[in-house]
């Protein structure tokens, strides 16, 4: 519904890109989690004293009771694939994806916890990945205290 005079106007496109650098504060809870991943290659969780639900990644408050979570427990690290997806070359975006396609995302129900962790599944060809598969974490040799310190989860041998 352009007014008719607009049909004759030269359309100028003004390119713009917002470039604002960000520095996110990790905070007390996740800093502790990542320090243990980085320094010990251990994945920990925290537990609610009231409803006893165990959360990984750790939460700041219980999702059910809004209580503070001060009890930390070490998880074995293994888990079960609850769901997964194979990202194809067609969808691959080098600006976004840290891995070359085809690669696999999964929600992994972590042993010892009530929640799942989202991460990559690797060390196995995508066609072989199945719901229900048992997996274990593989850590990077050089770790910086973030989620990519875990390289991916691979099938338990």
């Amino acid at each position, binding site marked *: 519904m352009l007014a008719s005079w607009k049909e004759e106007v030269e359309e100028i496109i003004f390119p713009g890109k917002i470039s604002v650098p960000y520095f996110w504060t990790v*905070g*007390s809870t996740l800093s502790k989690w990542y320090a243990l991943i980085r320094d010990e290659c251990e994945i920990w969780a925290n537990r609610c004293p009231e409803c006893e639900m165990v959360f990984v990644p750790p*939460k700041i*408050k219980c999702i059910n009771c809004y209580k503070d979570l001060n009890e930390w427990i070490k998880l074995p690290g293994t888990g079960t694939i609850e769901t997964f997806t194979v990202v194809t070359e067609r969808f691959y975006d080098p600006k976004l994806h840290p891995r070359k396609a085809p690669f696999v995302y999964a929600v992994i129900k972590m042993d010892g916890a009530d929640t799942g962790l989202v991460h990559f599944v690797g060390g196995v060809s995508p066609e072989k990945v199945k719901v229900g598969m048992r997996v274990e974490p593989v850590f990077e040799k050089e770790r910086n205290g973030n989620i990519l310190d875990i390289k991916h989860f691979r099938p338990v041998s």
Partner: protein
Amino acid sequence: MGTRVAIVGVGQTHHASRRLDCSGVEIIAEAVTRALDDAEMTMDQIDAFVIGNMDHFENINYVDMWATDGLGSFLKPVFKVTTGGTTGTTVAACAFYHVASGLFNTVLAVGWEKNSESDTQAAIATCANPILERDPFAGAIGPLATEYSMYMKAYGATEEDAAIVAARDRNNALLNPYAHNRMKVTVEDVMKSPMLSYPIKFLDMCPRSDGACAVIFAAEHLAKKLCPKPAWIHASVVRHDYTHFGDLEWQWMPTLERASAEAYKKAGITKPLKEFDVAELYLPASTTGVKWMDSLWFCEKGEAPKLIRSGTTHMDGELPINPSGGVISTNPIGATALIRVGEAAWQIMGKAGERQVPNVKKALATGFGGCSWSDVMILGADLP
């Protein structure tokens, strides 16, 4: 008519330049926990949530979704509102309408910001029209400096008048444990501070802060049960009349004039200077604390410097302004306007600690942001 609504609890974080101990979700949880404690309520008594911040400061999309763990909103109703600097009062108004509509009995309103996570000016710059105004004029300080220059020229107001406001607010903050900047300053200190953008100097201007504020609104029947002295909402008026900075009339502050006039009418206020016992005003720079006195109908046009110099607006005056220290002491942008409402509520509830003004029956809170937008909220100790 709608349900009558009161504020029954307020929580604030200790605002700071950088809260490196807290992620965004943790800072929200800190304010929410304190609000629940203040109201002596538990999370299961909250029916619904509303949250606001300015997206580009933290670069998190769908903040209402992301904040779930900090808000306590799991399996409950929530949505987000956002309107730049006025976000805090927009959030307050939204919570008010939730309850006044009769659809919800208790609503938790949260405003927050972690300004330390980005370059504030760069993030603000994108609010201006990218083609017409972004390059020459954007950022917070340009428009404010221009506006006061015009006022100085029209009425003979001076830099020193503004410095008096700066010293007033900053010294007030010394009694507010939550304030970000708490510094003893003299008018001379302000006058000597480095010029940022004529005539606004460093000590005239607000900081950027990390912080959060949570306010609990409740319906009449619950408010009376939950709180011995709830702060009743008497009026909420918003005027966001302008889109382009070039359209503004610079000699006065039109949106604030219109919004406050309308709010006073709704609340039955005819003599604001006399009838209000305290005012928490969104003054992003001390200069606005001079100029906007006229716009709030506290004095005749051009008479603001006289009002400021009279001591009326200081803590021991007839109408203390910004006992909390105001925006130039604390500015987590998404929370800032909500803090005005929260502080005004505490004044009525008698919970303002060392900065308590005695016998507060009527309080004024304002929000400012965007292209010279104004929000006005009037709170009272008595039912509206």
